[in-house]
């Protein structure tokens, strides 16, 4: 296991992890009403009542529980416009050519320790293909849940936007409270062809462990997008409030000329949570652009690191990057760290990096108190104000939930 991250990771006994667990009573999931009430509650909490999906028409959902995809909604509706949205296991059976053509092309199995592990043991996940010239008419989303004890989750998501296609995709993650740590080692691959655009949003709320740092998910995920075509665009937005340890760098390889990569992130670490997260923007094509906005929030004993690489290759004439990395501290026991790497091999490139660190002051909280706003609500206001730039990038339905989640995850962090 690599040791370079700014993380303290307890030893993981890989022999002890169950690598495949199917939810019990799988048969009954044919009816949406039969889904585990706990899972349904999770969806409701995140503002995605599955039952209302039919009426809302806003979002199509693939729900992955433990190692198995349990339900994909709207499959038929989407199929009418040629969009494939299904579980990975179905995709392997029904669209083997597509899977063969794209899988592993962005994240090869040799990529890193956890990518290899995932490639060896993964059993399911989500697959999505948007054909040429199609704008996906609704938000697509996958909900991941680790339910069984001692189970690791190793799903894969493969998202392909063919020429001129557009899709906005959201993933949400939850897990029940358990005393032991659980490993989540997923892979997300995105491919954008000529003029295609993919917007990938994550609201990650895996169980973070209790306030003393016991239990919680290790979220070690490899996410990478390839802007293969000209004028293609891949945009990552992530709200990371959960997990005991978050370790991931959703990245963009900007191979097509004039392609664009974006990374907008809010990462919260409260209590004993740790995060080492950021992005890699690899400029290969000409006139490629990338934007990085990272907002770290540390509270309690939380440790939050931004680590990012902006790499401009020799032929990437006219490459442009802007990075902004802000850290917000609540209290005096937490930490914020920034590790920006910039490697530029083309003289015409323009690369900018800005960083700030600030602290929520007692003065700000008192100012709110004096206007009748409680300390808890004041923190919510201030934190959401700080993260607004990123939250605004989320699909509207999820922005409100993300705001609440930020506030909930910082509950009790001051005073």
């Amino acid at each position, binding site marked *: 296991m690599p040791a370079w991250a700014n993380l303290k990771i307890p030893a993981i006994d890989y022999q002890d992890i169950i690598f495949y667990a199917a939810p019990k009573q799988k048969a009954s999931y044919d009816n949406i009403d039969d889904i585990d009430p706990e899972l349904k509650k999770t969806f409701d909490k995140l503002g995605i009542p599955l039952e209302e999906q039919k009426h809302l028409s806003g979002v199509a959902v693939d729900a992955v529980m433990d190692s198995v995809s349990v339900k994909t909604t709207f499959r038929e509706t989407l199929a009418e416009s040629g969009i494939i949205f299904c579980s990975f296991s179905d995709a392997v059976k029904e669209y083997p050519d597509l899977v063969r053509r794209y899988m592993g092309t962005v994240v090869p199995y040799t990529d890193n320790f956890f990518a290899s592990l995932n490639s060896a043991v993964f059993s399911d996940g989500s697959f999505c293909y948007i054909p040429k010239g199609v704008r996906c008419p609704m938000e697509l989303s996958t909900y991941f849940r680790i339910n069984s004890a001692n189970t690791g989750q190793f799903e894969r998501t493969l998202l392909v936007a063919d020429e001129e296609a557009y899709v906005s995709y959201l993933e949400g993650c939850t897990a029940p409270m358990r005393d032991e740590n659980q490993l989540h080692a997923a892979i997300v691959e995105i491919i954008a062809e000529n003029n295609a655009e993919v917007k990938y949003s994550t609201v990650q709320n895996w169980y973070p462990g209790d306030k003393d740092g016991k239990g919680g998910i290790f979220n070690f995920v490899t996410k990478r997008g390839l802007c293969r075509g000209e004028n293609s665009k891949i945009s990552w937005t992530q709200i990371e409030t959960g997990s005991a340890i978050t370790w991931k760098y959703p990245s963009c390889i900007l191979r097509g000329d004039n392609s664009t990569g974006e990374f907008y992130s809010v990462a919260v670490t409260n209590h004993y949570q740790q995060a080492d997260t950021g992005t890699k923007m690899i400029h290969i094509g000409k006139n490629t652009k990338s934007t990085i906005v990272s907002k770290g929030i540390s509270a309690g004993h939380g440790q939050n690191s931004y680590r990012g690489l902006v790499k401009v290759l020799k032929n990437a004439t006219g490459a442009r990057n802007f990075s902004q990395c802000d850290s917000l501290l609540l209290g005096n026991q937490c930490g914020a760290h920034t590790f920006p790497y910039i490697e530029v091999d083309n003289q015409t490139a323009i690369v900018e990096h800005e960083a700030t660190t600030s602290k929520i002051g007692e003065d*700000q909280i008192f100012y709110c108190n004096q206007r*009748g706003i409680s300390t808890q609500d004041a923190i919510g*206001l201030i934190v959401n104000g700080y993260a607004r730039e990123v939250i605004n990038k989320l699909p509207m339905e999820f922005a409100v939930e993300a705001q609440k989640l930020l506030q909930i995850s910082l509950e009790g962090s001051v005073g």
Partner: protein
Amino acid sequence: MLIIKNLKAEIDGKAILKGISLEVKAGEIHAIMGPNGSGKSTLAAVLAGREFVNVTEGSVTYFGKNLLEMPAEERSKEGIFLGFQYPIEIPGVSMVNFMKTAVNEHRKYKGLEPLSASDFLKLMREKKELVEIDSKLANRSVNEGFSGGEKKKNEIFQMAMLEPKLAILDETDSGLDIDALRIVANGVNKLKRPDTSAIVITHYQRLLDYIIPDVVHVLYDGRIVKTSGRELALEIEEKGYDWIKKEVDKKDLS
């Protein structure tokens, strides 16, 4: 409305207020004047509920309730407003969002429904006109990038929105040019109702040309050393604080 009895308070173990007694009745405007370091702002901080000030003795009763036991946000909802000497910046939080949260918290406390977005914006518009505040301020983050004068006007605007029973204005006049001063003072006067009161803390008397106090107190070395009518402010304007200091220091010696 407000009865302060023998109030003593310290900051980091250092005695700042050394026995203050003061009564403010409904409808009255009290001016508290005094040289720098006399404890004026500390008194305001105690009344608003700042935790870094440690009250060691005495009592403060507000409408018959023990004020010192109330958390700061409850004091606000009970009608105490503090106009800050140095208003705080809150980046990323728009004035609209900030005020909407505050106003609705106040309404919830009174058992009222929250205001709808349109009613709230209407209220904001009315109050902005009342205090002659630039409408652009409302769309900016709380106090962020505001000039000194804008910040003070913004305090008066918030006061207009929250309609306090007791307004405490802590050196609201400091750093204001004469036009801004007039706008601030006019705002205070327009918001004044027969049943509301104000404590105006100021170093100079010029604010009191616009806000006419019923009573003027002089605070020196943590004590109220003189209480009189408006003429006291004029006397201070003319003679400064030295004569009062001398009087007090002489008394202390004898």
